């Protein structure tokens, strides 16, 4: 992990805030994601994870702060920055009335994928989707639709990959396969990943680093394998529950 930290970050978030009137959804968070690094963004529902991802995705304007993707400022050069990004989320399935291939073709054009046919074949192969090539996405199972969303997310070889609970609706065996596929794809590229999940086993398995988000603030950061012990907890799940319920006890009161 140290080697990856030495590189230029592919995602740089600085002083990011999002307020809705008096509600502070995200309150001045700063972090980086380096190439080939998978960073877990953890927190309770409503902690600000999806708000953060929406802002990095350019579909939600921050109240303050900056987002730099592969050296490109998102606010100033939205299109150039988003060309280096992609995402998959359980709440944003691809249109069910198009086939897998049609969806990939449309998003291949939107992301400017040059060697589209070869690239589409490769991502379909990686995610075991070739047999569904001409099947409408709407008739696929949840797990298969998740894999199509991931195929779209990998299509343009993004420098920043945003995954919002990518395995939320799928069985453990498929989830494991998907984790391995993403991990392998990331290791073979210069992609950095921001990954949200409520599955602490998954986070421990795939993430190089985690950020605990509470009420819009990052209150804890570290290696998911060593972090629990640092705070006297057996597992990451125990630590998560402690962070959620008793942050003061852990000496990580909100700033």
């Amino acid at each position, binding site marked *: 992990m140290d080697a990856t930290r030495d590189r230029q970050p592919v995602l740089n978030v600085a002083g990011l805030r999002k307020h809705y009137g008096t509600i502070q959804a995200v309150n001045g968070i700063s972090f980086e994601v380096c190439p080939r690094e998978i960073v877990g963004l953890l927190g309770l529902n409503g902690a600000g994870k999806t708000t953060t991802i929406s802002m990095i995705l*350019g*579909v939600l304007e921050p109240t303050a702060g900056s987002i730099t993707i592969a050296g490109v400022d998102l606010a100033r050069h939205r299109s150039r920055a988003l060309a280096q990004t992609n995402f998959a989320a359980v709440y944003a399935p691809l*249109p069910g009335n198009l086939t897998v291939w049609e969806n990939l073709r449309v998003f291949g054009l939107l992301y400017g994928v040059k060697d589209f046919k070869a690239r589409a074949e490769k991502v379909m192969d990686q995610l075991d989707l070739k047999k569904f090539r001409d099947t409408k996405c709407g008739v696929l199972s949840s797990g298969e639709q998740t894999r199509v969303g991931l195929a779209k997310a990998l299509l343009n070889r993004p420098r920043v990959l945003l995954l919002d609970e990518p395995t939320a609706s799928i069985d453990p065996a498929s989830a494991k396969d998907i984790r391995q596929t993403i991990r392998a794809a990331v290791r073979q590229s210069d992609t950095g990943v921001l990954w949200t999940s409520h599955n602490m086993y998954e986070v421990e398995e795939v993430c190089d680093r985690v950020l605990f988000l509470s009420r819009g603030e990052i209150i804890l950061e570290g290696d998911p394998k060593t972090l629990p012990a640092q705070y006297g907890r057996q597992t990451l799940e125990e630590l998560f529950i402690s962070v959620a319920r008793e942050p003061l006890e852990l000496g990580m009161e909100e700033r």
Partner: protein
Amino acid sequence: MKLSRMAAIPLRQFYLYRGSVARLVPMFAWVTIDMVLWGFMTKFLGGVTQTQYRFVPALLGAVLFWDFMTRVMQGVTTAFFEDVWTRNFLNVFGTPLTMPEYIGGLLVSSMATSAVGLVVMLAVAGLGFGLSFAAYGVMVIPFLLVLFLFGMALGIGAIAIVLRLGPAAEWFVWPIPALLSPFAAVYYPLSTLPPWIRWISHLLPPSYVFEGMRNVVAGHGVNTALLGVALALSLAYILAAYLVFTSVFRHAVKTGLLARYSAESVS
């Protein structure tokens, strides 16, 4: 502006139409029904009035032109609704696609679908009731151009309403042509209207087209300066509609409406 990104929108529409009877049939069905209904109405009026007035090019032609403009508007709105219906905003607007590219893509989609509608209407009205564009001479080109541009402006304005008010506002969009038609003097001369309504008509580019069309049919000349006004008005409406849509889009990105569109959290 990248044409390849813009092309993604009409390509998506092509895929949808290719695989859906429910989308293909309305492209032909409604315009055919309109032509048949108004074709017989024209025949009937011609029979009972016993005048030299040329009802086919004046009335059936007006219906055809108005339907064409409606198809242009619906071509834009329907392509946009596909993203609404499939909750696809995050996927589409999280890409490098720019606003001019997105709107451009919707317009290209509309050109294709409205052109199909126009061909079908011409075929039915021509074969069934003897309507021919030759009745309007070369003026048919500016007539269609003005209606095409105004249809685009209506389409862009309509999707701005839906983006601002949420998916349920789709029902505000469908009646727009019907609401405008009395003021656009589609079926009768402008002089039929009371003076205060005529002021509204003068703001609507189609009113110049339909007035000009009736003049051509009656053997009078067309005031090309007025058609120029209609063209300029149409372009101004397109620009205004585009500015409104981009403003609504920026508001949606700022307030979180885009990220949570289906919640209809409009304030």
